[in-house]
């Protein structure tokens, strides 16, 4: 019975944890409940992924109303894969948050932080798992509102402005999405994603469908920080509390990418998006600009968190580059990179959170000679940084490898060269950390505190280990991504 209801429990357990936490108003209990709920969600997502790979897509009718009249939950190869990523990061960040949040937030806010964490997790999971376009909007708003709160809780006053800007842009993005869904609804009369896909080819109002495609693309691109709509991201990541940054960086933009993939390949279908419209060309162009410009900007940042934030914009460019190829290998690369970049960035931001806790700031001036006082943390950052570059033996290499394969398969060898060349810029910004931490003498500004707390360090190292593990054992990531890619290209009517 439990397995049958797993799709609902996947979202509902973290969601129900939030009001419980607020009812009890106790920091320690709140933390325990948040960890338990996140771990449960992770277990549920693994079970769902297994079930999907064994028996195919699962459909679950909320309220026992058959779709398209009721709301459907639908788990297939693609959404199961994203569910695992989101819930895994959630399950790791929740135990980590205890020390980090205790240090960064006043005590009265602790239980609220965990409640919002649960809401954000549930919102992202709900976006991924739902089979209904409007329900997706509702959960997008749950996730977004909780993200605005998480960012605004940052200590620096600039966090408030970052959160405000994100709120404005995020709401515009969500409203664009609603306009797009509204146009689709007017053209077809349904909101269920599978039903939409089935009815769109017969829709009379082709112009409305095209406009819907445009609105959904722009709206979701705002959320996933596709160049040039990324302006909210660096400040938001730089000033949010460390645990929140790690969680958001590893999951939020990735779920938006998922939404884009879902609409492009399930709803509109590859024939319309890829063959009839210049969408791949536009995506490829924007991705290249994003990769090059954001990587270059990252090199000149004075603050490690901001550096990593700009690097995120660049890495999202790699993902959209894979989508732009729209081939089997390209999409595989996009989905693999979704996962690999999620864990890599998660690991980096978790470690940086440890540095921020001990050193007070992650300005490069304060990082000089840090390797002497925080050797394990610095080693972790370096390893995860190698994965960011895409050095063989790390997870990042796998995604870049498939990206190169996809480019060659698409007959665009120059893209392959570009991927390799831009990785050199990544070398430059990762090198800045290595230089500061290992090769510089401790200066007057250097923090003298010791290693990060054990719980935080342990969780961070689980992520770092995952970066290395998925560089060698690719059976889960690549096979999962390949299945997802085949689903996207094959399911298109």
């Amino acid at each position: 019975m439990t397995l049958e209801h797993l799709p609902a429990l996947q979202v509902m357990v973290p969601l129900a944890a939030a009001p419980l936490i607020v009812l009890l108003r106790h920091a320690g209990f709140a933390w325990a409940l948040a960890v338990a709920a996140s771990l449960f969600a992770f277990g549920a997502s693994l079970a769902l992924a297994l079930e999907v790979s064994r028996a195919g897509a699962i459909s679950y009718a909320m309220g026992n109303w058959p779709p398209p009249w009721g709301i459907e939950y639908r788990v297939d190869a693609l959404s199961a894969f994203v569910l695992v990523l989101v819930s895994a990061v959630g399950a790791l960040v929740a135990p980590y948050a205890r020390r980090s949040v205790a240090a960064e937030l006043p005590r009265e806010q602790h239980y609220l932080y965990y409640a919002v964490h649960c809401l954000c997790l549930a919102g992202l999971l709900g976006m991924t798992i739902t089979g209904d376009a409007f329900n997706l909007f509702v959960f997008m708003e749950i996730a977004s509102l909780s993200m605005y709160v998480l960012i605004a809780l940052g200590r620096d006053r600039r966090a408030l402005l970052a959160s405000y800007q994100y709120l404005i842009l995020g709401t515009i993005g969500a409203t664009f999405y609603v306009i797009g869904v509204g146009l689709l609804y007017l053209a077809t009369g349904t909101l269920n994603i599978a039903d939409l896909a089935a009815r769109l080819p017969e829709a009379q109002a082709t112009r409305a469908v095209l406009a819907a495609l445009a609105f959904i693309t722009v709206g979701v691109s705002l959320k996933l920080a596709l160049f040039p709509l990324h302006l909210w991201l660096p400040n938001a990541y730089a000033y949010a509390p460390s645990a929140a940054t790690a969680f958001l960086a590893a999951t939020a933009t990735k779920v938006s990418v998922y939404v884009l993939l879902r609409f492009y390949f399930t709803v509109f279908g590859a024939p319309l998006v890829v063959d009839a419209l210049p969408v791949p060309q536009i995506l490829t162009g924007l991705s290249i600009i994003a990769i090059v410009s954001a990587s270059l900007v990252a090199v000149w940042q004075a603050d490690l968190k901001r550096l990593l934030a700009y690097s995120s914009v660049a890495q999202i460019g790699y993902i959209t580059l894979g989508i732009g190829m729209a081939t089997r290998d390209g999409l595989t690369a996009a989905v693999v990179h979704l996962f690999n970049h999620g864990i890599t960035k998660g690991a980096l931001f978790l470690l940086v959170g440890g540095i921020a806790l001990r050193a007070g700031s992650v300005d490069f001036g304060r990082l000089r000679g840090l390797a002497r006082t925080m050797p394990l943390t610095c080693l972790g950052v370096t390893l995860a940084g190698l994965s960011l570059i895409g050095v063989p033996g790390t997870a990042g290499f796998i995604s870049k490898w498939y990206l190169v394969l996809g480019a060659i398969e698409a007959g665009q060898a120059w893209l392959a060269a570009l991927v390799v060349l831009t990785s050199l810029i990544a070398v430059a910004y990762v090198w800045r950390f290595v230089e500061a931490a290992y090769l510089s003498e401790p200066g007057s500004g250097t923090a003298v505190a010791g290693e990060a707390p054990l719980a935080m360090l342990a969780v961070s190292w689980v992520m770092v280990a995952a970066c290395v593990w998925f560089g060698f054992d690719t059976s889960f990531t690549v096979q999962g991504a390949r299945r997802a890619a085949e689903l996207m290209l094959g399911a298109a009517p």
Partner: protein
Amino acid sequence: MPAFASHYTYWITVLLMAAGLYIVVARGNLVKKLIGLSIFQTSVYLLYIAPGKLIGGTAPILSEAFKVYSNPLPHVLILTAIVVGIATLALGLAIVVRIREAYGSIEEDEIVAADRDAGDRE
């Protein structure tokens, strides 16, 4: 112009939408931006609801007396959207109040300038 006669409801919506969006992008005052944002969202309500109307129909409350009803589904969706809109507005205003306390201003350019000054001093 049949296209104009049959589609003017859409176009009023579009005008409102553009005006709201213009306020959001062009204005530097944080509160006014939020007002523009809610006008932008409100205009979407019409986009959903207007096509659901059937002339000669009545509100979708079933009774013996009527046969033709307007489409209830958009109403439900927009109820949800209104609630989401007010929730966003409330949260946005809370952030603005905090910004005002931290910076003493709610003009975007002044705040950015204040941050730059603070950065220079460091």
